[in-house]
Structure formats: structure tokens, C-alpha cells
């Protein structure tokens, strides 16, 4: 077992090195050995895939290498073992620093030509070729009109959906070993990736169905999604930016995740309180141009008030209690909450009194 773990680590190093200039020191023998290792580890993957304990042990060892910053290059998970050979081959092929002799040896190993009975090499070749074909397919699909021009809705965009699935996949792997604390690498992702994009992916991820039918039976995504929610709630900066996503999207998310809906409503209250009424303009404005404007606030509350109960009731209760706190005016212009309630569609402002579920902190 120890020997296996060691080989795992060494191969992981090899994999990371294969992208750097160090490969210029590699000779044909090194290349052959590296590919053999990859093949061996793939067999390990196939044999122990269903073996819970061994798989967990291997995952743990690989997780250590993630470091606080998240998965780096190299072997990142148990599943990656199955793809190690393809990853290695592609890294080496793309690496210009690989010497001539080593390069020739690589090509000989990968594409031995017809007639040789090496089933493993043929299988690897088939997988590489299939990958090339799929990539070509993606390029072609991208060129068709269906994806260019005319932005699909966020929830329908397959690119975002794929990224959300990948994110949840990583979270699941982190969750499988108890040492996983995703806040570190999620934070890193937040700083590196473009922000709006990251938030959109998170939104899509939060809306994924909790039970997904994967190839190996129903997969429950509940855990990963909760981890994501927790992290989001802890990071106030991220949360503030997250709640600036389109109103409809946030309403759907609030419906699904009560914890997030509470945080969202708190934020909305804060934003509302920053607005003051400008007599000259006859509208609610805020001092800071960075703040959320009145129209935006109204749109969000309108969207929320069209959600099914209990969310709808929570929102209306909140608005009523804020209005009461401000003095319970019925005239416009005195309290932002009154105005909001007045501008909501009349069918929505019928409140069913079921007791205050929400208390505004004084």
C-alpha cells in the first residue's frame, strides 16, 4: 500500500513536470517509463474504483498535495488516475522543450502503427482520437448560430452548466476526505477568476437539483451545495456581490435555500435604509453612486413577492415590519418601505398573517 502511495506521488510530480521545461532533460527511456507508470496507475484505478477504503486512502494522499490554494497541476483526484495517461501524453506532445529522440520515442509509444497487438496502446490511441473528435465537434458547434449572438438565459447556458457541474464535482471530492476545507481554494478562485462569471457559475450550481442521476446510480449533491452555501454566507464581500445578480435568478435561489434568503433579505433592508427621498427629483436616491438604486430595489422586491409562499410571506412581513418601524405612514415619500409596498402589484401585497417570521434587528 505504501509503495502504491509513493508511486502515486511520484507520478503526480512527473505529471506536473511534464509541462515545464524540465522535460528537455528527458530521454526516450524516461518517456517510456513515464507512460508505463501511467498505464499501471490506470489499471489501479480500474481495479480499485469500487473499493471504498483503498480509494479513500489514495484520495487523501492526493488531497494533501492540493495545499491551501486548491488543486494544482498534477494528479488531483482519484478519478484523474484513469486519465493520467492521456494527460501525460498530451502534456508531452504540446511541450516544445521535449528533445528529438524523446519525442520520437513518445510517438512510437502512442502510435505504434498497425499490426502490433498491444491492446493497451490501441486503447490509449482510441481515447486520444476520440478526444480530438469531440474537440472538433465542440469547435463546430460553437460556430453554429445557436451559440453565437443572442445570449441564452443563464440557466440554459450549457457552458455555465458544465462549469457549475465541475465546481460541484470538486467540492464533492473535497468532501469525500474529511481534511477538505474548501474555503481556502474557493477564496483563491474568487480572487483569480473573473468575478461576475464566478458568481454566475455559483448561482447555477446552487440551482442544481439535489439528486442527480449519475452513471453510477443516484448521486446526492446536497452536501456540496450546503458547503457552497455555508462558504457564501461566511464571505460578506462575496455575498454582497452575489446579491447583485439578476433579480429573477436570486429569487429562485432564495426559494431553494432559506439560509441564503434570510441573508438576502438582510442585505436588501440595508440597501433600502441607505436611500433618502429627494424632494426636487421626486424620487428615492442614494448618496453613493455605488449603492443599489431605487428601481433595482423595487425590481427585486417585485420578483420576490411573486415567489410562492413561504418566501412571499416572509418578504411581505419584512416590508410591513420595516414600514411599521418607520412610523407606519401610508403616504408616499416618507418611508422607503411604504413606497415599496405601494408599488408592488396589488395581488401580491395581500398578506396572510401567519405570525412574524422575520425580525429586523433594531
Amino acid at each position, binding site marked *: 500500500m505504501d509503495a502504491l502511495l509513493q508511486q502515486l506521488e511520484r507520478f503526480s510530480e512527473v505529471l506536473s513536470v511534464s509541462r515545464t521545461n524540465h522535460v528537455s532533460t528527458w530521454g526516450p527511456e524516461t518517456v517510456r517509463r513515464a507512460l508505463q507508470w501511467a498505464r499501471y496507475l490506470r489499471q489501479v484505478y480500474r481495479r480499485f474504483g469500487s473499493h471504498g477504503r483503498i480509494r479513500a486512502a489514495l484520495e487523501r494522499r492526493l488531497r494533501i498535495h492540493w495545499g491551501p490554494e*486548491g*488543486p*494544482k*497541476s498534477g494528479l*488531483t483526484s482519484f478519478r*484523474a488516475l484513469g*486519465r493520467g495517461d*492521456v*494527460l501525460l501524453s*498530451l502534456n508531452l*506532445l*504540446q511541450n516544445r522543450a521535449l528533445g*528529438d529522440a524523446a*519525442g*520520437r520515442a513518445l*510517438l512510437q509509444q502512442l*502510435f505504434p*502503427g*498497425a499490426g502490433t497487438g498491444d491492446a493497451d496502446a490501441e486503447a490509449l*490511441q482510441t481515447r*486520444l*482520437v476520440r*478526444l*480530438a*473528435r*469531440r*474537440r*472538433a*465537434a*465542440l*469547435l*463546430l*458547434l*460553437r*460556430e*453554429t*448560430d*445557436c*451559440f453565437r449572438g443572442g445570449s*441564452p438565459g443563464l440557466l*440554459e*447556458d*450549457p*457552458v455555465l*452548466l*458544465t*462549469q457549475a*457541474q*465541475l*465546481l460541484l464535482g*470538486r467540492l464533492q471530492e473535497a468532501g469525500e476526505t474529511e481534511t477538505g476545507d474548501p474555503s481556502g481554494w474557493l477564496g*483563491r*478562485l474568487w480572487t*483569480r*477568476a*473573473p468575478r461576475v*462569471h*464566478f458568481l454566475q*457559475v455559483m448561482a447555477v450550481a446552487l440551482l442544481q437539483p439535489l439528486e442527480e442521476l449519475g452513471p453510477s446510480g443516484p448521486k446526492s449533491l446536497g452536501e456540496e451545495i450546503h458547503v457552497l452555501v455555508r462558504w457564501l454566507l461566511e464571505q460578506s464581500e462575496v455575498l454582497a456581490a452575489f446579491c447583485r445578480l439578476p433579480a429573477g435568478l436570486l429569487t429562485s435561489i432564495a426559494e431553494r435555500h432559506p439560509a441564503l434568503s434570510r441573508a438576502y433579505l438582510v442585505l436588501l433592508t440595508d440597501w433600502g435604509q441607505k436611500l433618502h427621498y429627494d424632494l426636487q427629483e421626486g424620487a428615492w436616491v442614494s448618496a453613493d453612486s455605488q449603492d443599489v438604486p431605487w428601481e433595482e430595489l423595487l425590481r427585486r422586491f417585485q420578483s420576490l413577492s411573486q415567489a410562492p409562499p413561504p418566501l412571499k410571506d416572509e418578504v411581505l412581513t419584512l416590508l410591513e415590519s420595516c414600514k411599521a418601524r418607520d412610523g407606519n405612514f401610508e403616504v408616499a415619500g416618507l418611508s422607503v418601505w411604504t413606497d415599496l409596498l405601494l408599488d408592488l402589484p396589488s395581488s401580491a401585497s395581500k398578506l396572510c398573517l401567519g405570525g412574524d417570521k422575520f425580525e429586523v434587528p433594531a
Partner: protein
Amino acid sequence: MERFPTIGQLLAKTCSNPFVLAYDESQKFLIQCLCCLINKEPQNSGDSKLNSWIRGLLSHILSAFRFNIKEFDLFTQGLGYEPVDYCPALLKNMVLSLVSKLRESHLNGFNTRRRMAPERVASLSQVCIPLVTLPDFEPLVEALLIYHGHEPQEVLCPAFFKAVNEAFLLKKISLPTSAVVSLWLRHLPSLEKAVLHLFTKLISSERNCLRRIECFIKDSLLPQAACHPAIFRVVDEMFRFALMETDGALEVLAAVQVFTRCFVEALEKENKQLKFALKTYFPHISPSLTAVLLQHPRDTPQGCHHQLLQHVSLMLRKAVEDQACGSCRDPFESWFLFIHFGGWADLAAEHLLRSAVEAPAAAEAPVAALLWLLAFYYRPLDSHQQRAQTMVEMEAVLSRLRFLTLSRSSPISAEELRAAAGEDSHEDPMQPVCGRLIRHLLLNFLLWVPAGHAAAHDTITLMACTDEISHEITGFLDQTLYRWDHLCTEAPRPAKLARELLQELRARV
């Protein structure tokens, strides 16, 4: 490469063309070509440069995909994923999103905002042409085939239909029956190609094995598709041409009969609310005649078969003889319909023989009806007189055979049988079909009459003097066994004998 330097350019251009790379196995071929060009022992810098150029091309083929959306790349890199990890998932999601868009567009008739523009659908079908055999694309191909736009003309490009049809015929893609039917309904050349493909398979397979023919026919999905009258008419037309071109070859006849059987089976299984009238399938024939012929003898008890056959004969005779005097349609149509359900003729021959030999005191009229049926089946173009003549000849043969079985102490010999059949005295060698009819009567005699069993082997040996006749007899035995199976006829001794004879004949070929 030295002699044709432009090959280098060609290769480079091919490797960067996603349309080429997406097609079937072209990636493999390209890679093999490039690997052949590699210099195993580079002598000079020129050789090494060539090698590294080839390596570059190979790397380009295998890994030159960048989605070119910066956010996407950054995000996936941040998560530590490589293209090999996410390509399959991304492709699957894109395909599913397209499929659901097509479905929505299909269902939302009047909501123009949600509809996909016809140009988009057309360009999508073009993109799919090289990718038809990629398993990830099957849902998209199916969705495109079932998609009905709101324009009167066809929106998908014909090359797409062609590609899908070819992939289907070569079994490189698996589609549900509804999608294949939709393909054939929308693109006639594909249907024709499918039928020709079936014909090729039937021709090149072993002769005289109806079970195998049935397998091929069922496999091709044509019987199920033919539940749609338009498809049935096209297929029927092609069978008709084949029959005419081959002058009524027995193999084509057998194929028509097996196809019709599979078709009727498929028709019964269809639970469609819309059941097409018989006239849409057989427009040239009166529906009552078609209905009579479609009846399955299995549904009636054996004792009533005789009446059934009589009824069939009467109706057919009426149709044919009414047409002959005055109407412009020739008896060919009635005959063509009749041969679809060839089981009737075989059943008639069986009954004729058995009743002639076992119960000679039966009434004359039913026998005449059966005689007419058989004479019509084998010689449809005869005039009234010629047919009457044939019937008389048949009756003579039957009475001779009957005579042979009456009060005999010694077993019948093969020569006697042959003499009874009148084969020796071939007055008119230009009547091969009549000979076929007589041979079938004789064969029925051998199978059904216990006295004939002993001489069976020898008689067959005597009859099968040419290859042609040998094949004919093999075909007859195979067809008889096949028919007994499907009718669930209980006839253990004849069946056993038939199997033995068949084996013997097949061994001789």
C-alpha cells in the same frame, strides 16, 4: 514529400480544419499518415525540423482546442481541470441544450420568440453531417429527424439525411424506429437506398433460407416503417420492379411473401389511433379482396380451411375475369396482390392433393376452385382457354396419383410416380411453369401420403436433374417448413421427412 512539397501544405491545412477532424475516423488516418512521415534516423537539421513540424501537427490535431472564452478557461484552470476532463461533459451539455431547444421550438407553434429560425436549424444539420457517428450526438440527430418546422419546405439539408441513412445502414448509429421512419418519409432517396441495401443483402446471402431472409427484413426496420402507406407503396413498387426484371424469380417471390408477413405482423402490433384504410396500401385492388387475402388461416379451424380457400378463389376469379372483359386494368395487379400472400396457393395445393387422395368422393366444385387458384398463381397471363387446359392437366395428374394409392400391395416406386406426374412425356418443353406446378403437386404427395414416403428420396433424386430444379425443390421444402411453423400445423411425420429431404438436397449443393 520532396517530390510534392504541396503535400505538406495540404496536411497542415487538413489538420487545422475541424470539419475534417470531426469526420468518422479521419483523425486516425491523419495521425497514421503523419507518423509514416517521421524520419526514424534524422541525418541533418532538415530532417529534425521535419520531425518537429510533424510533432507540431500531431499536437495540433490532438489538443488544439481552446474554448476561447477567457472566463471559462480561467475558471477551469483555477479548478485544476484539463480539457480531457471537461470536454465530454461540455459536449453532452451542449447537445442536451440543443435538443431541448429543438423540442421547445417544435412544440411552441405560435410563440415565435422561442422558435429556432430555420436557418439555424439548417446550419445545425450541416454541422452534424460529419458527426453523425459520434455516440454523443445521437440525441441531437434524433431530435433533428423528428423536428418539424413551420415552413412548408424541408429545412434540413439533404446531405444530412444521406449521412444519417448511410450510418444507419452500416449500423454505425442506433436510432429509434420513429426517427428512422421520419428520415425515410422526408427523404425519398434514403428510403430507396435502404431497400436496395436490403436487396443486396438478400441476394448475397444463402439461398433458400427463409428464416434468414426474415431476420434481414426485420432488421432493416422496413416492415415497421411500411405501416405508413407512403413508405409501403414505394417499397412495394420496388419489389414489383424487381419481380418484373427477373421475370418472376422464385427468390424475389419468396422475399415479397416474407416481407408481407412481417409487414402484417407490424401492422397488427401498431396501436395507432390512425389506422389507414386498406385502399391506401393497395390502391388498385378492391378492398374486399384485400381484406379476404389478409385473413390469416391460423385464425380459422382446419376444417374450415377448405371453405376459406374456396372463398378466396371465387373473389379472385371474379376480380380477374371481370377485369379481363372491358376494364383497362390487367390481371397482373390481382396476381401481384395475390403473390404477396403466397401462403394461400401453397395451402390450396396441399388441400387439393389431400382431398384428392384421401377423400375422392368429395364434391367437384371445391376442387375446381382450388385448381383455378393454382393455375392462376403459376400462370397468371393465360387466356381463359389455356387456363382451362392447365386445370384439365392437373386433374389428370391427380387422378393418376390417386390411382396409384388405391389398393396396392407393393410400395410405389419412384419411376411410377414420375410417370404419373407425366414428366417423362414432356410434350411441350416450353411450359416450365406448368412443370413447376406438377412438381409441387408431386412433392405434396410425397410428404402427405404415407404410401409416398418410401419412394420420396428416390423420386427427388430423379426429379432434381438440373441445378435449377434442385434449387426449386429446396426452396419449396424450406418454404413449406417455414409455413407450417407459422401456422402451427401439426404434421410430425411430413415435417420430419421434409427436414430429411432438405438436408440431403443441401448437402448435395
